Structures are given as structure tokens and as C-alpha cells.
């Protein structure tokens, strides 16, 4: 497996796990119900994929695993220091999960910081000064809003299977905030990276961004179907099937997002 493919896989697993952790920790805050500890599986997946990502980072930059070279990479560069901070939150989450700590606010805060610090190492890191702060903030908000949606689907499905239809209503209410936020910050990101307000179909980056928008439109369609058709009629089996499709669409979206962050905006 080449480094690019390994990095894409690590990014996909890492973004996915980090988002699921945020969404699951946030869910009881708006939908009610008991708070749970962080999933050990997802926390471990997030941490292991981060370590894999780190190895790819070394291979793609210096290719040198000696101590001075690692120091130059992880301490001597801005993205290296941002990555170390991100890893620290990952380790903290893993520790909380291993202990089975049910500390709702702390768990949510750590999961959010873990996801948000991913904004410090991508394309947003290219901008300096105020533009850099705005860009990283927009990117962080995008990740958090997407995490709230993606990560909320699993606990929602569990709640529906237990016959709690009100959870679906509350999830939609959260979606009314998250969905516009995802679109606005996504387009804001696109503008800040490429300087254009719409994807450029001639560039790979633009095509990937357009694919994300298309998948997201399908996702909104399914959400609307649930909200306007299935939920009012109490068709739980139908909602659950739609949620499963939503999760598949989100996995596809995430795969595109993993590739998007690796591709050059100007190539």
C-alpha cells in the first residue's frame, strides 16, 4: 500500500471516529436520556488512526524516523505542534473511555476539542493572521456541525428501536441548526481555500467539493423525507432504513472529504 492510500484510509477512519465521538457525546444534551461514557471502540479507532496518520506524515515530509528529524517535524513546525495538541486530546479521550468516565460536559468538551484541533493542520494552516484565525474557526465549526449530525444518528437509531419517536423530533431540531451551519461553513471553507464561491469543475479539488455538495443534497432529501413523511406517520422501520442510508451517504461524504484535504486546491 502506498503512503497516499494509507494516509487517505487513516484520515477517513480518523475523521469518522472523531465525529462519531462528538455526535454521541452531544446527543443526550438535546435529545434527553442518559449520558454514556465515550465509546472505547471509537476512541481507540481515533487514536490508532491518528498514529497511522502520524507515520504517513513523517513518510510524506522527511521520511526520517530519527529523533532529531521527528523533533524538527513535530516541534519545529506549526502543523507539527498543532498535531501534538490534537494527539493529546485524543489520548485524554482514550483515558476517559478506558476509565468508563461518565462526565457529560468534560467528555463533550474533550471530544469537541479533539475534532476542532484537526482544523489546525489542513489547508486552513496556510492562511496567516486574522484570515488564518477565521479560516481555522470556519473549518472547526464545519467539523463540529458535521460531527453533531453524523455522530447523532447512531444513538438516534438506538432510541428509535426502543420506541422513542420523540428522539427523532429532537434530532431534527438539532439538524435545523447543524445542516445550514454545515453548508455555510463548507462553502466558506471552499471560498477561503480556492478563492471561488462555487466549486470549479475543471479542477480535482472542485470536483471533489461538488461531489460533497451533491451527497449532502441527497442527505438533506432523506432528512426531509424522515421529518415530513415517515416521522409524522410513526413509520419507525422506514425511518431506521433511511438512517442507514444516511449513514452510508455520510461515509461516502467522509471518504470524499478525506481525499479533498489531501488534494491541492490549484491542481
Amino acid at each position, binding site marked *: 500500500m502506498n503512503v497516499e492510500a494509507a494516509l487517505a484510509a487513516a484520515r477517513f477512519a480518523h475523521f469518522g471516529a472523531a465525529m462519531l465521538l462528538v455526535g454521541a457525546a452531544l446527543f443526550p444534551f438535546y435529545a434527553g436520556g442518559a449520558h454514556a461514557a465515550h465509546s472505547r471502540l471509537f476512541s481507540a479507532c481515533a487514536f490508532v488512526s491518528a498514529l497511522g496518520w502520524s507515520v504517513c*506524515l513523517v513518510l*510524506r*515530509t*522527511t521520511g526520517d524516523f530519527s529523533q532529531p528529524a521527528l523533533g*524538527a*517535524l513535530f516541534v*519545529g*513546525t*506549526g*502543523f*507539527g505542534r498543532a498535531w501534538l495538541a490534537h494527539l493529546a486530546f485524543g489520548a485524554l479521550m482514550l483515558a476517559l473511555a478506558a476509565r468508563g468516565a461518565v462526565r457529560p460536559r468534560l467528555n463533550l468538551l474533550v471530544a469537541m476539542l479533539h475534532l476542532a484541533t484537526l482544523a489546525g*493542520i*489542513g*489547508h*486552513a*494552516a*496556510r492562511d*496567516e493572521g486574522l484570515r488564518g484565525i477565521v479560516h481555522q474557526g470556519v473549518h472547526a465549526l464545519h467539523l463540529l456541525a458535521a460531527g453533531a449530525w453524523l455522530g447523532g444518528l447512531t444513538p438516534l437509531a438506538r432510541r428509535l428501536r426502543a420506541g422513542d419517536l420523540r428522539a427523532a423530533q429532537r434530532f431534527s431540531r438539532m439538524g435545523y441548526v447543524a445542516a445550514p451551519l454545515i453548508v455555510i461553513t463548507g462553502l466558506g471553507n471552499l471560498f477561503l481555500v480556492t478563492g471561488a464561491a462555487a466549486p470549479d469543475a475543471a479542477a480535482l479539488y472542485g470536483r471533489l467539493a461538488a461531489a460533497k455538495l451533491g451527497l449532502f443534497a441527497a442527505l438533506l432529501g432523506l432528512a426531509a423525507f424522515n421529518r415530513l413523511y415517515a416521522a409524522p406517520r410513526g413509520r419507525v422501520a422506514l425511518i431506521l432504513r433511511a438512517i442507514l442510508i444516511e449513514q452510508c451517504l455520510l461515509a461516502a461524504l467522509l471518504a470524499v472529504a478525506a481525499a479533498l484535504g*489531501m*488534494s*491541492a486546491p*490549484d*491542481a
Partner: protein
Amino acid sequence: VLAPSAAAHATLEQASPRVGATIGTAPREIRLVFSEGVEPALCRVTLTGRDGRARALGTPHTAPGDRRTLIVEVSESLAPDAYKVAWRVVSVDSHTTQGDFSFVLAR
């Protein structure tokens, strides 16, 4: 000759000595301006003459307040020759690019 890698991230926009130039005085430093900021700790620049020997250079650093400009001092006095500058840089968003170009120091 500019030779950016396939994933064009930090591309060379400007160089001093200029790409392909013939110059009359030995440069004291090599200045490379990229399309985006670079991390000097991970940047490598080499200067070789026609004999293939790498000339002594200082540690690469960026210009004060400008992460896009990479500067590397030439630590030995250069004799007239055709030189190749090879660079490998890591951008502030962690993408690696490399390339090389030549210039001629005339008598």
C-alpha cells in the same frame, strides 16, 4: 527548469539567482519565493556545480514576517560554473514539493 511534483502545493514562484539566468557576480545567498508558506525546519536546499560537488550552504530560514520566502546563505565563494539548485520544501499545511533549476555564473 521548474519541476514541481504532481500535487502542486508550494510551487516555486520566483528565485534569486533567477531560474536559468546567467549572472556576473557570485551570489551570497539563494532566495526562493513559493506560492505558500513553508516550514524552514523541514526545507532542504542543495547547490551543486558541474563537478557534482555540493557547495557549502547555511541553514535555510524564512524571511522575517514572510513565510513564503526561503533564504539560504552560500557559505563558500563560488567560482564561475554552471550550478544546479535543488529544493525540497514542506508547506505550512504539511505538503511536500520539490524541484530544481540551474543558473550560470559567468566569468
